[in-house]
């Protein structure tokens, strides 16, 4: 057999880049497609049973109506040049998104008791696409919280930025944030593997994530050590972006670009880890 350089086409023309670029492109398109199929699977489920989402309205309502009202009167927290309730609304949106996403992983444990996860893993889909699809579906669930928190905010007189650009920015930040915490949740679920342990860890995790962030008070109020922690907390960047995008007079501390960048990088990192631990759930 004659040895032939792999880059040389049968017709003799050398095209050193094209085939590898095409393969890369095909795998990227394949990855995106598979991710969307998994998201579609979850969204279809949700469409058959939307009632669950309504119960999610209770928690943000309680925070905004009770905690928010009291602390607005107390003027205990420096919210800059906006009323405290305005300052807090994006934080509560981020919190609701966090709560939805952080328990999203439990679905994996349910699926493990069924055979669905085995069938997904035996299909020719990249593992990372399978997990990212779940992250996006958590994001879609979380979008209902945007509607709920916006409605509550309007009721409470929060001044909202209604420009389409700002709204799309909010949707983007919510999707990214939800996907991040859903990935974290999924990784935990894949490691602990039982509902009981998962619920325990989920509960233990949400409170520190929430309080060690700028959701209901600015970072500048915190003691030094907590400031460091909250700067490593992805929720802080989600809140920061939401505060700038959602409010008419909102401002970002870090810059929206930095916020989205941190969230995007965190997500990419978590997807890689989740894609690695996910197959273990089938064993």
């Amino acid at each position: 057999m004659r040895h032939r350089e792999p880059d040389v086409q049968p017709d003799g023309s050398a095209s050193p880049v094209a085939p590898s670029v095409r393969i890369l492109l095909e795998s990227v398109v394949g990855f995106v497609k598979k991710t969307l199929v998994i998201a579609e699977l979850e969204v279809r489920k949700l469409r058959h049973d939307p009632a669950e989402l309504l119960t999610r309205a209770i928690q943000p309502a309680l925070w905004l109506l009770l905690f928010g009202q009291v602390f607005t009167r107390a003027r205990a927290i420096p919210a800059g040049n906006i009323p405290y309730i305005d300052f807090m609304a994006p934080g509560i949106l981020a919190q609701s998104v966090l709560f939805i996403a952080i328990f999203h992983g439990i679905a994996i444990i349910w699926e493990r008791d069924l055979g669905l996860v085995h069938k997904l893993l035996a299909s020719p889909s990249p593992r990372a696409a399978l997990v990212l699809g779940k992250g996006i579906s958590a994001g879609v669930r979380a979008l209902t919280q945007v509607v709920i928190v916006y409605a509550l905010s309007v009721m409470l007189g929060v001044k909202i930025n209604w420009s389409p650009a700002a709204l799309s920015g909010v949707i983007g930040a919510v999707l990214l944030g939800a996907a991040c915490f859903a990935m974290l949740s999924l990784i935990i679920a894949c490691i602990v593997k039982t509902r009981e342990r998962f619920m325990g860890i989920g509960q233990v995790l949400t409170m520190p994530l929430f309080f060690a962030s700028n959701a209901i008070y600015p970072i500048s109020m915190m003691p030094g050590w907590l400031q460091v922690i909250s700067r490593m907390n992805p929720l802080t960047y989600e809140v920061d972006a939401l505060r700038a995008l959602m409010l008419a007079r909102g401002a970002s501390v870090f810059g929206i670009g930095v916020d989205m960048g941190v969230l995007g990088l965190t997500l990419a990192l978590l997807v890689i880890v989740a894609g690695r631990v996910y197959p273990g759930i089938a064993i």
Partner: protein
Amino acid sequence: MPILETDALTRRFGDHAAVDGVSLSLDAGEVFGLLGPNGAGKTTMIKMLTTLLPPTAGSARVAGFDIARSARAVRRVIGYVPQLVSADGSLSGYENLLIFAKLYDIPRSERSLRISEALSFVGLLEAASRLVREYSGGMIRRLEIAQAVLHRPRVLFLDEPTVGLDPVGRRAVWDHIESLRKDFGTTIFLTTHLMEEAQSLCTMIAIMHRGRVAAIGRPDELKASVGENGTTLDDVFVHYAGDRLDSGGGYRETSRTRRTARRLG
């Protein structure tokens, strides 16, 4: 070339070898039955061959692709019906198939035709728009088979396909498996602990016991190897797997099996 071959395939969990150096070779178009009591290593075997579980030692090829090195290629040519319920109860039968048609890259133009073909093959065309949680156990299993053959796999793996089904449902599943082999030449690899199932379906049988293949051959050959006329597969099984039908598996597996049985029943 055999469609499926394993070479000293081994999987250990700690000190325990669930599958212990299994070598077998299977020609295309066979219906291969892996028999054994619970805990014999049947499911572990299927999980390795479907690329869900990496082997500890040894190797295997499915349709010429190595299960460890070319896992993606293996996944394209196999279909898999896990023992546990794998259809999504909160979706309709049609949606279940649609999602998998997309996951297996069936082109958009062919999708609806393939889905309706698969649905009519298992007799679920009329129930297609109903939620799967309203299906009977037999219907769920048939839907799962439809789901697993949408992409026309060369080898179809079925893990205890009739566990928890009543005789009517069981018969229907057998008929579908039989026609898959006849009409499409699909190679079938199934596990079972029912002699009757092995007897009426399989062209080739291996008896697995404590992670090893104790005997392998055509049903008649196996019967002949044990004794005179009138020997049943039950006798063969007792002969090779020992008289102790020690149903291992432990608490978790038992509760899973029962849960599956309840969901399907």
